């Protein structure tokens, strides 16, 4: 995904989270990715993707199997090009920070973004600033969201692989988890064990 590219718009919003629809079918970031919501006024409200769903645009119509007879899924879409017009991909974003006068804060935004605000991928600089804040992990841990541990794992995973981080970063995150989840050793261990770091850490 290109840095800063607009990938969708908000279609439902509240103080703690929003639902966005991607412009392209399946064209949304994966769970755990950090995204930015912008409208013409705010500098950026950040959130983490916590759920993705693809459904029919018309709730009264459900997809039905197109096969048998296809060797792969790509062929199904090729043989039925109208599908992309009849389905939509939505993703849930839980807010975890905002930017105001160029200063980042890890908390829910004072005012949620507007409906039809753009959803962007987050650039490297902003990602680094967000993850350098020690409150980030604690905030995500304490947020109300589905699949929380999976989201935490994927979020940390994404950042470590993106930055090709060293072992010190992994230790830092482990410490942050320990502070956010006191006396939950098993849970912390599960999260760390589920990380899939792409390169050997120094």
């Amino acid at each position: 995904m290109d840095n800063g590219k607009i990938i969708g718009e908000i279609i439902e919003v509240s103080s703690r989270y929003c639902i966005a629809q991607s412009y392209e079918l399946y064209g949304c970031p994966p769970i755990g990715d950090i995204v930015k919501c912008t409208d013409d006024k705010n500098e950026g409200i950040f959130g983490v993707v916590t759920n993705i769903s693809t459904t029919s645009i018309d709730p009264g119509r459900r997809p039905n199997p197109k096969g048998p007879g296809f060797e792969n899924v790509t062929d199904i879409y090729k043989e039925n090009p109208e599908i992309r017009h009849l389905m939509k991909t939505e993703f849930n974003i839980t807010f975890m920070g905002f930017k105001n006068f160029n200063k980042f804060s890890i908390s829910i935004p004072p005012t949620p973004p507007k409906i039809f605000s753009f959803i962007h991928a987050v650039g490297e600089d902003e990602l680094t600033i967000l993850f350098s804040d020690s409150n980030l992990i604690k905030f995500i841990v304490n947020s109300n969201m589905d699949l929380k541990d999976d989201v935490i794992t994927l979020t940390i995973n994404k950042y470590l692989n993106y930055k090709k981080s060293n072992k010190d970063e992994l230790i830092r995150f482990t410490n942050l988890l320990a502070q956010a989840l006191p006396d939950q050793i098993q849970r912390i261990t599960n999260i760390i064990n589920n990380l899939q770091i792409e390169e050997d850490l120094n």
Partner: protein
Amino acid sequence: MKIEKTVKYISGLARQLQQEISMKNNIADSLKSDINANPKSILENIRNGNDKQATYADLNTAIPVTAIEKNISVFGADGSSIEADRELPLEFSAINIGYININYGDDPNADFDESLTFYPDNKDIPEVDRKLLSDINAMSALRHVLEIEYLIGKMEESKSNNIKLGFVDGNLYPNFALAHITNITFKQFLYKRLDEVAEKIINLSQQNAYIISYNSSPNSIHISSKMKGKFAEELSDSELFDNLLNINERSDIFTEISEEENNNLKPISFVFTKNYKELSKIEFLKDTINSETMDKIHGIILSQVEKGRGYPKILIESHEHAVISQSDRAAINTLIERELNLLNINYKTSQKQQSKQTRNI
């Protein structure tokens, strides 16, 4: 509602139907033998695919489907309407045309569009006045004409080099509705529009673009009514050809020579085709599709039927796009109320309508 009486009545009808089906199967078998035994027997006022007098032998023509081309473009248009409601203070009608184009092959893509028009006071069709709104047949025929015109317009605009096939639902001409329009002036207006439509269809056919109508399990009797035999009149064309064709086969091309003197419309040809779900009739303007082209089109039609699990996918989607939902209709009522309130017009429905909505004891 008295349930027992209803159940008894419906059971009686179902038993009657069972007997009818059994009788019709016997008649169809008997007719099949008759066709084989008398191949030269004439079908009056019916021409065959070679534009010659059709005989029983032509009924035995059963052409299997051939492989379809890789790059094809299909188009579909369907219409939906809001009929004028006498109970509302603002009396108007709306016609929504849903359209879809799907291109298959090297560059698969799809395009949707729609066109919404209101009557009366439509600048393009001033012929529709307030009185005509209550003529259901007139508005139904108009809708049908608008569907075909929209489809033709879109196909003319299409830059695709593929073979193009446009689908409309039902008969190519809105025969029933036209026959029951009481306003002669409007009827003539529609005939003129259909004549112009026919010219455009002929032009399109010279550019590898064709328009057909797809009639699902038709009740027509074009052929069966011409059969000789005591009980032939009991059968419809569907029932006759269902026995004559195997799955994925089509009949010869037939044209019925109309005896109506008033009918200025260009003649229609048709074929019957049997798919894995039902028998259908494909209508098209005479001489726009020859047998060789129909072989290509037949494959496309069956492919669409397969994608749509029994009905052409292109027509399913154009219908979905055309439909004016209950929530849309409710929104229109809300809009009417709001607009009238803004102008301080006292919005109320008739007491009859009020009594149906409130249903007091």
